[in-house]
């Protein structure tokens, strides 16, 4: 018997790690990975809540989230490639032509 809140806290931790990653990582790809981490955290919540409510729809959501994540990954990585082509760097701190 695992209290549900454990799952939820775990998901929260993952989400928080993702946020932290976004804040501290410099490499665009790693930042993107942090986002994936956040999504994974959310997915865990969905599944946990699905278990709590006894509704399978929660699991369906996870499926959709994955699809979206996949699509995002494809697009996101393409964008990253495009950025790399024009800037020849993946450091976000240097991707700052647009400011003020």
């Amino acid at each position: 018997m695992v209290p549900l809140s454990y799952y939820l806290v775990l998901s929260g931790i993952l989400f928080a790690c993702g946020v932290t990653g976004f804040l501290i990582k410099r490499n665009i790809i790693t930042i993107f990975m942090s986002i994936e981490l956040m999504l994974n955290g959310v997915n865990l919540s969905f599944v946990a809540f699905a278990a709590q409510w006894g509704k399978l729809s929660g699991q369906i959501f996870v499926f959709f989230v994955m699809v979206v994540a996949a699509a995002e990954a494809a697009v996101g990585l393409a964008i990253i490639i495009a950025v790399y082509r024009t800037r020849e760097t993946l450091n976000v701190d240097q991707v700052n032509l647009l400011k003020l």
Partner: protein
Amino acid sequence: MNGAAQVTPQAVEYIRILPEIVLTIFGIIIMMLDPLMDERRSQRTLGAVGLVGALAAIVATLYQSQYPGVGFWGMVNVDSFSVFFHFLVTAVTAVVILTSYEYMEVQQIRAGEYYGLILFGAVGMCLMSSAVELVLIFIALEISSISTYILAGFRRRAAISSESSVKYFLLGSFATAFFLYGVALMFGATGSTSIAVIGQVLASGQPPVLAYVGIALMFVGLGFKVAAAPFHVWTPDVYEGAPAPIVGFMSTAPKAAVFAVLLRILFEAHAPGRLWLIWVVAALSMTLGNIGALVQDNVKRLLAYSSIAHAGYLLVAFAALPANGIPAAMFYTASYAAMNVGAFAVVSHLASAGERYVTMEDYAGLGRRSPLLAATLTIFLLSLIGIPATGGFFAKFYVFSAALQANLVGLVIIGVLNSAVGAYYYLRVIVVMYMREARQEVPVSPVPLGLGVALAISAVATIYLGVLPGRVLEYATRSAGDLLR
């Protein structure tokens, strides 16, 4: 819930997603035509197809409005509210496509994907306004977001364009994750993702704290999308880097759709505790947006700040009582769409190849070089200021009067002061156009037909909303009734 028992959707339910279907079909047609044509011819043909698609979607929307009701097992709900936003989104799409003709040629952008993405993006936006289920909303949101991420980076050879794209993409995904987490918590709190069910649960008794957190996180995600402070920081950068017609598109249509979602979540789902949250966010958005714009010299960036401010004005309506606030907000989205699309249409025309001419200085003497264009831009700017006889005026008017009916005097004071301060930077553009001589030779090509039509539509819409706002507002009021029922 008629869908629970049945196995396949009925025909009428397809009508309820007809505009989306139409848009998708035309998007696919474009994709298929693209490889069949050579580069030069495809530009116009594909644009024409896209335009037809958008117009067909408008027709479909009108047709659809005859068949209100729920479809696909409670996933979509066609009511006057959704029809309103469908119409808005498709109309904006059509205008943006018209605007893009010339831009594509000047900037040498590949047309197939461009128009396709616009149409597909419009699918997402349309769906957002009619979806009544959080997961569908999420997917629709992603469709519109991802397509705009891509469109923002369409000027691939320009470093700023891809930077804009990557910033938009990363921050957008970041915010989407928040939204999604909110959905999850909401699901956890209520056991459902259907807005109707959530609304029932939340309306009955004290909602659980989890629901509050869920709302908070969803608000963060959606607030980001509409560029409400403090989630607005991406806006200026992205707008500056993205292609001008696309900025016109993404500052209006997706925003309108997200506002529709926000309205549904806050009002239809009876989200608790919104008042002071919105109060602060609205005040902050107005103030930061206007103040930030004061010293901008890049017109695109200026309009980006202005869109932050306008998000703030719009949010004022959300703090008001639903019966007044919703119609006010809807009216605001409509008039904002009209004027902002128009303004960006002018900007994209003047930008010229490589978007070289986008600073204030480049607008100097425009009133002399191209009086009609300058006059049109002036109309949009005046509307953005909120001068009577333009849509922008009535939009602010309704919003503020709705807020006053809810006794939000402080917020209204902040709002009107902001709109006065905001006048300054719009006025600067007008001043530069009419009262300053050009220091350098900035070429202004004649306005092509497509752009002309687009400008005419936007201008007429802006003026129409400013002179005879009654019908639109009446419709919006009816929609609000539908939403709150």
